[in-house]
C-alpha cells in the first residue's frame, strides 16, 4: 500500500501543478469563483444543514425523521441545479430548443410529487413504529 500511496501522491502533485500552470493566465479573473465554493459551503450551507438536522430532531417523531431529511436533501439538490437555469445571468442570445422549458412549473410538479411520497412514507413508518411499539 505504501507504494500505491506514494505513486498516487506524486502523480497527483504533478497533475495539480500542470493544472496550476495552465490556469495562470485566467487566475485573476477566476480567483473569486475558486474561493467562493468552500466559503459558501463552510459558512452557509453546512451550518444550515446542521441547524435543520437539530430542528428535525426536536420537531418530528423518530420514525418520520429519515424520510423528511431525505425529502429535504433531494429538494435542496434539485433547487441547486435549477439556479443557473432559472436565473441565467449574462445569458447567451436565445436558442430555440434550449433552456426554454417552464422550469419553475415543472420543478413544482416534481417537488409536489416528492413531498406527497415523503408524507405517505412518513405516515406509514409512524404507523408501523406504533404497532410495534
Amino acid at each position, binding site marked *: *500500500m505504501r507504494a*500505491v*500511496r506514494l505513486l*498516487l*501522491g506524486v*502523480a*497527483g*502533485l504533478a*497533475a*495539480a*501543478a*500542470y*493544472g*496550476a500552470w*495552465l*490556469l495562470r493566465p*485566467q487566475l485573476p*479573473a*477566476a480567483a473569486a*469563483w*475558486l474561493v*467562493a*465554493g*468552500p466559503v459558501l*459551503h*463552510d459558512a452557509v450551507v*453546512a451550518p444550515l*444543514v*446542521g441547524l435543520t438536522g437539530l430542528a428535525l430532531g426536536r420537531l418530528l417523531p423518530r420514525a418520520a425523521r*429519515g424520510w423528511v*431529511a*431525505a425529502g429535504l*436533501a*433531494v429538494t*435542496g*439538490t*434539485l433547487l441547486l*441545479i*435549477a439556479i*443557473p*437555469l432559472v436565473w*441565467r*445571468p*449574462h*445569458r*447567451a*442570445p*436565445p*436558442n*430555440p*430548443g*434550449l*433552456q*426554454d*422549458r417552464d*422550469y419553475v412549473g*415543472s*420543478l413544482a*410538479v*416534481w417537488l409536489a410529487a416528492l413531498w406527497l411520497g415523503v408524507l405517505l412514507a412518513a405516515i406509514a413508518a409512524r404507523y408501523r413504529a406504533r404497532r410495534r411499539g
Partner: protein
Amino acid sequence: MRVPVPRPEDFRAPAHTPRVTARVGLWLGVAFGLCFATGLLSHFAQHPPGWFTWPTRPVSLYRITQGVHVLSGVAAIPLLLAKLWSVYPRLFVRPPRRPPSLVATHLAERLSVLVLLCAAFFELSTGLFNVAQSYPWRFFFVETHYAVAWIAAGALAVHVAVKLPVARDGFADRPDADRRAFLRTAWAASAVAVLATAGITVPWLRRVSALAWRTAGGPQGLPVNRTAAAAGVQVPADWRLEVVWPGARHAFTLDQLAALPQRTETLPIACVEGWSATARWTGVRIRDLLAATGAPTGRAIRVTSLERAGLYAASTLPAPHAADPLTLLALRVNGEVLDADHGFPCRIIAPSRPGVLQTKWVTRLEILP
C-alpha cells in the same frame, strides 16, 4: 453574545464517521473519475494533439462520452455535499501547537483539501452555468474549466493517497441502520438529480426531466446552439461552395450540389453541453464531392463558415471523418430544406463529432496538404 466555535466531538449525527465518509467518497471518486476522463476525451476531440485520433464509430460515441461527462457532474453535486457533511466536524479540529513537523503535516493536509474543494466546487458550478448558457464571469470558460480539472484530479489523487488507511478502516466496519439511511439518501438524491436532467440526451426522459436544458423545441425538431442572427450570417445571392486545394479551385451552386447523388443518413448531433438530438440528414457525401472534383483523398479538410467571427467559424474535419461514407454536406434535415438556424445552405454532419465542429453555413472546403 459569543457563539462558541464547535469542536469535532460536538457533532453527533450518524453521518460523521469514516464508515460513511469512505463509502460516499468512493461513489464521489467514481463520478469525478468518469467526469475527468470524458472531459479529457472531449478536450482531445476538439483540440486533437498529434498522437490522438478520435474514432468515427460508434456514430454516437461523442454523444455518449459527453452525456456521461455532464451527467456524472450532476450526480456528483449531492454526493459532494453528502461527503462534506460527513467530514464537516473535521473543519473544527484544533491545529497542533508542536512539534513543528506535526504542525507542518497538519497544515499541508488542510491546504491540499482546500485546493481540492476550490477546484471541485469550481468545476461543478461553472459546468452547470455553462450548460445553462449563462456566463457570469470574465475568464475563458473552456481554458479555465480544463485547467481546474487537472487541479481537481491531482488534488483528489493526493487526497486519496493521504486518506487511504482511514478509508480502508472505514470499509472494514459495516454501517448501522441510521448510517445506511444516510447513504441511501445520498444515493437517492444523486439518482433524482440525474433523472431530472438526463432528458437532454435520453429520448424517453425528454418530457419527464424537469431540469433538462434541451427541450423538444427548435426548428425542424432540432435544438439550435447558435442562430443565424446570433452568428450574423446572411447568405449572399451569389453564394457558392468552393472546394480548393493547391493548384485547383472548384465552385458549386446550391442547384449543382442538389444535382449530385444525394444520401440520407441518420446521425446524432451531440453538443459539449451534453445534449443530443438524432435527425435524418440528406445531402452529398463528402467523399463523393471530392471524387466529383478530382480532389486528393485521404486528407483532412478545413471547413469554413459564412460566420465571420467566433471560435467555431471554421473547423478541421480529420482525414478518417472526411473519408467516412456517413459524412455529409447536408442540404436537408428530416425531409425539409435546412432552416437558416441549422446552417442553410449547407452544413457538415459527420459521425461521432462534437456538435460545435459540425460547421454550419459552409462556404469553403480546403483540402489540407
